[in-house]
């Protein structure tokens, strides 16, 4: 009788170890990188640490894909995965890396900008760790990460985060790549990643930078082109082209006092034309129901439908939801229109990307047929 609680304790401890083992294995599986199969137009594959060696062998290092035409033209940077819980940004970057060829100028693509953020998911959200797409070669998986760097890689958060531009933010923002620009060589891991991106911009002679994001349907900056003031004309022309194509985009000027973001610091610190694109993603909104793989891919949610009926959203949201293929199509249309606008304004630095899937095709057929 005396040993009854010892036996119970031993059994419970064994159960704990079993649960710890299996759940630990699940969590650790997120540290396995997604696969990517670049197009034949790829001319060089580098790592972000090639531009800032202090990142080597850290969780912040990530792959950089370069498509160089060798023909005189401008240099473009496309960044996905700044926020790893915004899959349309990452998927657009992957789709471009697997399809394009540079016909003029050079394109540099970073699909997983915050690589550490892809190794975990947001706590207490119950988000799926990955989603799946059918491709001609079979079923492929892609990780859905967290908005911020993994605390295992950057810890602890300060009470108040003072970013490299001196802006005071909540402590968790120390792990938000889109608050860490222009970065800091001796700072937090996230600041080092931002610093490396700035070094890449300088070394590759980037003139136009596009950062691909998503936002919640109840957030006002949505279906938008957020632009640095040096890209205002470019953004306005792109918006007109997009409207002519049937894509509604609003223009949002980058607030000069909101520091540390790509559309602000790429323009201020590097002097490039910087824009950020936003599409609506119900899977990371606050009004969503159960977060499922289907919500990420199909984008249907009855609570968002109800919110739309009540006029609480900043985008139309019907029974068909806002699927990933539409969000990626919007990003592709945005990239194409921005490039066309850039080429019109800077004909001597034109950038031409060949073999880019058309937004209409992606919207009609989905992403799968265009991936390898």
């Amino acid at each position, binding site marked *: 009788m005396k040993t009854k*609680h010892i036996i*119970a*304790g031993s059994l*419970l401890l064994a159960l704990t170890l079993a649960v710890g083992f299996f*759940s*630990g294995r699940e969590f650790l599986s997120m540290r396995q990188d997604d696969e990517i199969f670049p197009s034949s137009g790829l001319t060089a594959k580098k790592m972000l640490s090639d531009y800032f060696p202090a990142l080597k062998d850290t969780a912040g290092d990530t792959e950089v894909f370069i498509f160089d035409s060798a023909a005189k033209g401008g240099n473009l940077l496309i960044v996905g995965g700044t926020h790893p819980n915004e899959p349309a940004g990452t998927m657009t970057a992957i789709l471009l890396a697997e399809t394009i060829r540079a016909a003029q100028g050079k394109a540099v693509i970073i699909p997983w900008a915050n690589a550490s953020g892809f190794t975990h998911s947001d706590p207490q959200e119950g988000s799926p760790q990955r989603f799946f797409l059918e491709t001609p070669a079979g079923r492929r998986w892609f990780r859905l990460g967290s908005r911020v760097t993994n605390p295992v890689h950057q810890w602890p958060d300060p009470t108040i985060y003072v970013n490299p531009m001196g802006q005071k933010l909540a402590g968790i923002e120390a792990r938000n790549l889109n608050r860490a620009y222009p970065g800091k060589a001796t700072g937090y891991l996230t600041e080092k990643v931002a610093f490396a991106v700035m070094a890449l911009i300088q070394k590759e002679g980037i003139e136009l930078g596009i950062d691909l994001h998503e936002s919640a349907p109840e957030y006002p900056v949505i279906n938008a082109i957020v632009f640095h003031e040096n890209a205002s004309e470019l953004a306005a022309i792109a918006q007109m082209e997009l409207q002519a194509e049937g894509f509604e985009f609003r223009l949002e000027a980058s607030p000069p006092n909101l520091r540390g973001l790509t559309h602000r610091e790429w323009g201020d610190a590097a002097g490039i034309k910087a824009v950020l694109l936003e599409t609506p993603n119900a899977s990371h909104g606050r009004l969503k129901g159960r977060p499922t793989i289907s919500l990420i891919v199909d984008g249907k949610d009855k609570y968002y439908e109800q919110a739309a009926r009540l006029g609480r959203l900043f985008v139309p949201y019907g029974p068909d939801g806002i699927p990933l293929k539409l969000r990626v199509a919007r990003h592709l249309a945005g990239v194409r229109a921005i490039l066309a606008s850039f080429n019109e304004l800077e004909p001597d630095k034109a950038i031409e990307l060949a073999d880019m899937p058309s937004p209409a095709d992606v919207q009609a057929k989905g992403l799968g047929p265009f991936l390898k």
Partner: protein
Amino acid sequence: MRILYHLIVLYMTIQLVWYLFREKNFWKQASLVLVLVLFLLRLFLIE
């Protein structure tokens, strides 16, 4: 900083295991292991 974190988590984990075997009420033992799983994951830096 990481060593300090490990030491704190290890100390708490040992305390939890110690109390697991001292506690005589089964339901309190069961409640305790719910917390212990999280501490074990933290101990191995699994997020």
